[in-house]
Each structure stands twice: as structure tokens, then as C-alpha cells.
């Protein structure tokens, strides 16, 4: 068996060099890596991303926000962010448990490519773009395109995610997120909804982003519903046409039919929550 190694570089250039040689698996929080590890341990070298300078943290940056790839969910919970990020923050609080939030990273959540990744709907609603780097250079792709399918992401060998970039949300925008699961903590979502909504002076919605997870191979925005919300105070009845992008499956957590029913209800509640109304119905 060829010798595998544990790399923990301190700067990104080094990390990208190591990655370019192949046979190396990045590890950040390890919270998806270890549960998926097969018996006998890793067959590849490991590249620890947690010591790379500048990879962890959230900062305001020319006309928007940057979330470093190694930013942990608990960093998101604690960060000082405008109300448009309330949905992302709520999602962060619902990722597994405190233990998982203290290790698991935002980029890891995306790269893992699970249809039930809680980070994806709020990040879609915030218009996130993914910055990817390799020894050859950098590129940026919208999150919609980065996640291509179940466990499939747009990363070539030698590439890694270095950050997410989010445009400055509209003035006064508020985010909200809700997750439906069968128990209080440590639960994979049956469905979840993330929204970002802004209103004009008259209280009418002039910016609406609604994204739904666990109802399709990749979390989806609902453009028809977003369009329908604009110009209203939020009192839009969710129709089958609005949910057209979704294709929920039956699994142990719930049937596809139930998911559709639940998601319609949840959307209404999350929109009201982003309106500052009470969310329990």
C-alpha cells in the first residue's frame, strides 16, 4: 500500500500545490468525511483545511460578503450580520448539534452535495456564488450551478472551494429559515425553506427569494412564487405551479406527497416570519 500522509498547510498556495499532485482528500470539520469513511481507513492522503490562513471567517467585502470556506457553522451563529442573514443563521443553529456546528463548515456542507444540506436554501436565497481555486487559477460559479446533483459538485481534480461570495442584500431585507424534522435536534430535514424578503415603503414586497431543500436532488429556488410575491404583502397562496421545480421522493422520512404538502405550509410560515410575524401558524 502506498504511503498516505496528513497535510496541514498554513497557506493556500501550499494547499493548492498539494492538491494538484492528486490522491489527496480535503478535510475540514470532518463531520461528513468520517461518517462516510469506509472500514480500514482512508486510502488517500488527507489535506486539513483548518490551518490555512484566511480560509475561516466572515467579512464584508467590496459590495457584499465573503464567507471563508473553513468557516464553521458556529462562526455563522456568532457573526454580526444584517437581518437578511437571519435565515442562514437559523439554519446554522439547526445543523446537527452544537458539536457538529463547532466543527462542520459551510463549504463542507455544499461540497458534500446532500439534497438535505441545510445550508443550501438560505445561501441560494442570498444569491451565493462559490469561489473555486486550484494551482492553475480561480473561478467563480453561482451556487445553483455548483451543486449539480446528489453528491455531485462542480469541482475538478485539484480544485477546492475557498470562499462563498454574497451580494449585499437589498436595504431592509430580512431572511428566515425553517426546517421540518421528526425530532428536535440532530435530524435530517424532511423539508426546509429559506427566504430573503425586502419591502418597499408601503410594506409591499419588492424583493423575494424562496428556496426549498430536500424536495429535489438539488435544493431549488421557486421563481414563479418569487415573482408572485412581489407587489404583495406576502399573503400569496402557494400553488402547485409555484412548486413545479420540486420533485420530492418517498423515503423513510416522509412521502413525496407529504413533502409537497408540508413545504407549501412551511413557505407561508417562513414568509410571515420574514415579515416579523409570529411563525407558529
Amino acid at each position: 500500500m502506498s504511503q498516505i500522509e496528513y497535510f496541514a498547510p498554513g497557506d493556500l498556495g501550499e494547499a493548492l500545490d498539494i492538491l494538484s499532485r492528486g490522491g489527496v482528500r480535503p478535510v475540514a470539520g470532518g463531520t461528513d468525511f468520517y461518517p462516510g469513511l469506509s472500514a480500514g481507513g482512508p486510502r488517500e492522503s488527507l489535506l486539513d483545511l483548518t490551518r490555512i490562513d484566511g480560509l475561516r471567517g466572515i467579512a464584508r467585502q467590496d459590495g457584499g460578503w465573503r464567507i471563508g470556506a473553513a468557516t464553521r457553522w458556529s462562526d455563522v451563529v456568532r457573526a454580526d450580520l444584517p437581518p437578511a442573514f437571519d435565515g442562514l443563521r437559523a439554519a446554522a443553529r439547526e445543523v446537527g448539534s452544537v458539536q457538529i456546528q463547532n466543527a462542520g463548515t459551510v463549504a463542507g456542507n455544499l461540497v458534500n452535495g446532500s439534497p438535505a444540506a441545510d445550508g443550501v436554501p438560505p445561501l441560494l436565497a442570498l444569491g451565493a456564488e462559490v469561489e473555486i481555486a486550484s494551482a492553475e487559477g480561480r473561478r467563480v460559479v453561482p451556487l445553483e450551478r455548483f451543486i449539480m446533483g446528489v453528491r455531485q459538485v462542480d469541482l475538478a481534480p485539484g480544485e477546492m472551494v475557498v470562499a462563498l461570495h454574497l451580494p449585499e442584500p437589498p436595504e431592509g431585507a430580512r431572511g428566515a429559515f425553517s426546517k421540518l424534522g421528526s425530532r428536535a435536534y440532530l435530524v435530517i430535514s424532511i423539508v426546509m425553506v429559506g427566504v430573503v424578503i425586502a419591502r418597499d415603503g408601503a410594506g409591499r414586497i419588492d424583493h423575494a427569494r424562496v428556496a426549498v431543500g430536500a424536495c429535489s436532488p438539488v435544493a431549488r429556488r421557486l421563481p414563479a412564487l418569487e415573482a408572485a410575491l412581489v407587489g404583495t404583502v406576502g399573503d400569496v397562496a402557494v400553488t402547485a405551479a409555484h412548486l413545479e421545480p420540486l420533485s420530492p421522493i418517498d423515503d423513510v422520512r416522509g412521502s413525496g406527497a407529504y413533502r409537497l404538502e408540508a413545504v407549501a405550509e412551511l413557505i407561508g410560515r417562513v414568509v410571515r416570519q420574514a415579515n416579523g410575524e409570529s411563525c407558529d401558524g
Partner: protein
Amino acid sequence: MDKRVDAETMFRLNGRDVRLAPRVGERLSEALRERLGARDVKVGCNAGDCGACTVLVDGAPVCACLMPAQQAAGAEVETLAGLVAREPLAADLARRFEGQGAAQCGICTPGMMVSAVALLREAPRPSEGEVMDALGGVLCRCTGYRKIIDAVMGRAPGAVVDADGHMGAAIEKLDGRVKVTGAERFGDDVATADALVIKVIRSPHAHARFVLGDLDGFATREGVEAVLTASDVPGVNLFGTIPGFVDQPVFAEGVARFRGEAVAAVVGTAEVMAQFDPARFPVEWEVLPDVQGMAEAMADGAPQLHVARAGNVMCGGFVAHGDVGAALERAHVVAEGEFETGFVEHAYIEPEAGFAQVVEGRVEVHACTQAPVMDLDTLEQVLGMERARIRVVPTATGGGFGSKLDVSVQPFLAIAALKTGRPVRITYERTESMQSTTKRHPSRMNVRIGADAEGRISGLRFDGIFNTGAYASWGPTVANRVPVHASGPYAVADYRAEAKGIHTHCPPSGAFRGFGVPQAAVAQESLFDELADRLGIDRLEFRIRNALANGVPTVCGQVFAQGVGIRACLEALRPAWQAERAKAAQVNAGDGPVRRGVGVAAGWYGCGNTSLPNPSTIKAGVRADGRIVLHQGAADIGQGANTVIAQIFATALGVPVSRLDLVGGDTDVTPDAGKTSASRQTFVSGNAARLAGEALRAQILQRVNAGEDAVIVPGEGGVEVREGARAERIELATLETDAEGYVMRVAESYDPPTKPLDANGQGEPYAQFGYAAHLCVLEVDTKLGTVKPVKFVAAHDVGHAVNPLLIEGQVEGGIAQGMGMALMEEYLPGRTENLHDYLIPTVGDMPPVETLIIEEPDAHGPYGAKGLGEHVLIPTAPSVLNAIRDATGVQMRRLPVTPGRLKAAMGEAGHA
């Protein structure tokens, strides 16, 4: 240049610098436990799902099983043992955990306490919500979480300080200290450093023929010490629990009958086994048709699991009393239905684990267990070895709930130790534990119950089939117990109940708290609500009207002259029932989507084996130095036998419980106190302890000719006996010491009086029953189908409460399990084989529980005490279902009631 981390990793562990050279991919948990000796870090799942391995890294709680060991480089790592030793806040928390009885088995305690320390450092006075958020990542299967919450919040302790600690005193657990300091040693904590590691090779198919390949070549290639297969079993390659039903091979021979069945095992050094991939094991599979469901298994032409069991029927149980047909015929109303429940996994946080070694030609097996002497019985057969050459030493057991009654790791350990001559160890992976060990039986039950116009039961007919999986395990017990109990604790004169165990290619179903009775209670108690409603009688009053009473025959024709406490339990719920119903009506007056419901249900359970001998023996002795030693062989799996049995013994002997030294169930020195099952330990072993205490007391008093009422005062090197003004001291050094070092010694046995059941199940199956009634308040979000329990009130007739604090602990833990069974738990072979997909309640799911202790003394119980361990979850699931029906009008007949299922049922019933 790449700056790979030095092969050496350095960090601080509990304040001291440590260096180590972990493998690539080695988890911090493994490094801490195996390289640095921090065995206070517990591993329950290796996947972040249970949180038992929580440690602080630079102050932040993380799962050590998900962190590469190298990632800790330069960090400050803290574990429970270090925190309690070094930080006053943690030491204080440890005392609070003890004072609340917040640690039962103790396997989750390190994870709980470490998480709580992180919270308390930031928020010294946390709210309940903050505590839940902080502990949401740590699963506990014993306590129902409420006492843990109380401990973290610093609420007034439940334990009392009591100098004697006799019957009735809510003292702290006697073995609690080690559980809150990280010193407790469970199955995975006792191996020596040089122990070889065993990994079992298991069938990936539910039914398959297999041929093993070149094992010698494999062993050489992999560098392993030994490969074990059926041909290495020195004795009989079978184990089981019930005579006549010993049918499960240690290693399958040629055919595997369930996914996860063992076909071989590999034994190698820890280094070699860390890189071992079972996929490389040489075995060829030929997949055969399998049956997973009972209907399929009973169909014509279905593959047969065992030749002698035609139609895949393992066996059945039957009870008939009166004339059920006529009674149903004349009934004013009849309710009927088909109810279904699924596999439920025990989900103790400690996976099966142990260690074995050969010492002077004898094999010693140290493992977690509920039944050390049954383990010995099995090993005697499997090893074909003289009993005297086998020693079973139970380790602390991190939860059992019935599944650790069966052997799991023990035969592998013993065979491997004997074959290699070296110390060996094994710990099941979580998935392996879930795939291969027993489950609660799935059931399909058809039940009809009639009542007359006055609301008295007029006929109850029960027909149930139970999926017993590939092997019998405790299936026959379930088949026998269910018909005896399916009436519930009610006067039912006309009755017919039949239960059958059906074999399928599923994991074996075995013992799980209640042996089928919780399933039966779901059907019967649901239909009781329907009957009450149709008759226009209050649901609680309906039950009170039909409650069994002293002098009224049970469905087995057994008449108890005393001790029937169900009516008292039901009546104790009356105030809460009325108040909660009124409150629910108020909540429901609004038109929001959330509806509140209140449900009530009852249960009973016979303590001890059903009409079979069931003795316990308790031994005790006095050493020359004055120490009083109690050989407490009743396996304490967290429920508290170490404390309760000692309290009973101390009461009988008349000395403070603090004067006792406890010795556990080591089969070399401690007699058989039977298995920890059937809610029998407090009753049966408790009686043996009482008799032993009385016998020792008599010996002591006799030596100085003192009367019954004399006071025994143990001391250094002597025992003083005081009677009135007279005080005599027995100088122990002057007495002869026996081979075990005792100057006085007693051993007493107790076997509960029962009588066999005839062909109609008539007889005296148990010497005592315990009784229970639960009330559940919950809220249903009718738009989403989600259910949120708000509160439970639980009334339990325990005869005479030995330790009220431990009773509350049992009740709260049982309710958590019953609630899980009702709302979220379903084991699906191949699909929910880990704690990520198989959901048990978390701290945030568990509402407050109010426990009402009812004491209707039992003539056979020690000082009147009755068993409790299983009663605590029997009424829970039906009380939840009845509350759901109260809230929504929908009677759910299939468990678990997931949001999707409830929503679908409400849709069918015409709810929006």
C-alpha cells in the same frame, strides 16, 4: 514546500503536554482512548450521532470521533476526567448529577457533562432552552433527560441525605460517583494494551448461501493472527435463551438467514485491524429469496427458515377465559381494529464490547451484559468446556433494555482467546450492533372488544402475530406473555388471546422492555377510548369502572387477594386529567393550526418468569476487619440494582447502607441472581437480599444471644450489638476465617411462587404484577402533522418504593422510550441501521414528567415492593396515541406516528 504536520502531534490534554504519532485518518477519540489512556471518552457511534465522545477543544464541545487526531495539534483538549479533577464548576456539576440521579448507566454522562461544562462557563444560570440547545447533540437512552436538565440548571436535588439509606430513602446511587468522574469501566474500557482485535465478517444479504475462500492465504496476506469460522467452535455452534429454542449459530454454516449474521471473524493486532477492510475477506455469496414481512413468510411456498417450524411459525401462546364469542355477541358496542408496530431498536449508547484472556488454563470473559450466569451457561455449551474453567466478569453495562440478555460478543471473545492464547477484545460498530442484535418484535394485532351499556367490558379477543426474525431468541417469551397481558389491567371475564411468533429473514427479535406487552397495550388501550366515546363515558372513568381489583380473577383465572393497584393508579390521575382537559379545551378554543390533546392509558406487567422457576441467590459475608461485603449479582445496567438491592439488604440486616462493600456479578465469587429482565430484580433478587440480610442479622444476634430488636453497630474489626442498656462486641479477629476470607457468611435464595398454565392459559403465571397509568398532554400541528408532547403524568404502583429517586428515573426513561416508539422509532433492515437514520428522542423532545408513586404493598415483594422496569413504558405509547386522537379525532393504528403518516391519516379523515 509542503509543510506536512510532523508525524508527531502535540497538544495539551487536561493541562498536560502530550505527544503522539497518530495514523492518517485516526480519530481524536481513538487517539485519546488508546494512545493516551483517556477512556473516560466514550465512543457510541463513531459518526457524531450520539455525542458520547464529546470533548472540549479550545473550550468548544466537539465530537472527538469526527476530528482527525492531528487537527488537535496545539490545542487544549479537555475530557470529563480532567474537568472534574481540575475545574470547580465541573466538580460541582458532578455532585449535581449525582444528586439528581442524572446518570443511570453512565455511558452518555461524559458527553453530557462535558457539553454542560461548556455551557456553564458561558452561562452560569442557563435557561431550560439553553440547556436543551447545549445538550441536544448528546443522546441518552436511560434517563429521559429531565434529571440531566435539572442537574445542569442546578435545581434542588432529588436525593436526600439519609444516614441509614434503608427502604424508602431516596438516596443517591451507591455506584454513581464513578459515572460522573469518568472512572466507570464499560465493555470497551477494560482491555489490556496488547489485546488482539476481533472483527466479525457479516452477511450483507438477508438470505444467502456462502462459500468461504482460501482463509490461510488471506490470513498470510493480511498479516492477521487467526480467522474464526464455524469449524473453530469447540462445542455446539448454537446459542439461544429458551430451552428447545437454542437455534442461532455463533457462525453461520453455509447459509446466512439475516443481513448482519456472523459468518466468520478475523483476529489481528490493533495496528493491522485498524486498516482491515472486510470487503477483502474471501467469501462468495449466492443470494437466495428472502421473506421480510410476516404475510410473505406465512404464504404458501415461502422459504422456510427452520425445518421443524412449519409455515415459519416459531410457536404460539394462548389464553382463554369464559366465552368470548357470546360476550361480544351480547355487547352493546364493539370496537375493533388492526394495529401494526415495527421493529424497535434498543439503541443503548454503549455498543456491545468486551475483553477476554486465558488465565492458567481458564478463559475469562469481561463484557457488558444483563445476565452473567446465562452467558456462562452459553459459553459452557459453545466452548464444550468444563464450567469451572470459564469465568464471566460483567463490566459496567451502558444500557441494555433487554438486548444484552442474549450473548453477542462473548462467544467470539472466548473462542478467539482460546485459539490464539492471547488477550483479545472486540467492540461492535454501531451499524453492526444494530444489524445483528435483537429488536422489539414488529406486530400485527387484530383486536375486538365489546362493552355493555353500563360501560363494562363484554368480551375481548386478541389475535397477534409477531415478527421474531431469523432466530428464536426471546420470541417464545413474547408469544407467551402477550396473551397473558393483552387484556390490560382490567376485569375481563370473557377473553381469548392468541399470539404467534413468525420467522422472517430479519434480525432476531428478542427481549425489549415489556416483551410484546407494550405492543398489545397499543391496540387494547386505543380501542378502550373508542368504546368509552361511543358509550358517552369519560375515558378515564371507563377504565376505572373496569379496573381489576383484589379478589377478581385475571384472564388467567388467577385471583389476587391483595396488591392489585391499578384502580389507585387511575384515580391518582383524575385531578390532572380534569385540569389538563380543561386547559386543552381553552387552547383549542382558538382557531390556530395547533390542537392540544390529552390521552390516558394503563398497563400491567407480571414480575418474573412466566410460570417458570426463576430463583435469585444473594450472598454476603463479614470480614475479620469488620467490612460487610454484599455479593450483588443482579446486573445493574443503569436501572439501579446496585443501590436498591443494597438498600433492601441493609434494611434487613439493620446497618446503614453506607457500611456495605459491593462485589459485582463475577461468576467466580458471586452466586446467580438471575437475569436483569422481566422486572424481576427488585422483587426476586430483592427478596433474596432481604432473606440474606435477615440471616446474617440472625447469625450476629445469635452469637451474643440478643433479641430481635437489638441494634447492630458495625465497626473496625468488630461488630457491636446493643440491646437496651447492654452492649456486646463481637471481636471478629477471634473468629475462624473461611476460604473466601469471611468470618460470617450467608447465602439465601428466593424463587417466586407460580403455577403452570394449562392448555387454556389458566393458572398462576406470576406471584405479583405491577400496575401503571400514564397521562399524556401533547400538541399536534395539524398543518404539518407534527406532534409535540407537552407533559406526562405517570402513576405507578410499586408496592413499596425502595428508592423514590430511582423510581422517577425509571419512569422518565421509560416514557422517553415509549414516546420514541410512538412517534419516531422504526428500524428497517438495510435502511435505518445507524443513529443518523434511526431516530430516538433527544433532550429537546422530552417534556416534563410528573411521577405519582402509588404504594399498594404486595405480600410477596420484599417489604411489599414490586418490579417497575418494564411497566414504565407500557402505557406510554397508547397514552400518546390517545392524546393524538383527542387532539385530531384520528386513531392512528400504525406506529410510529411520523408527521407524514399523521398528516395522511388526517387527510383521509377529512381534515384540511
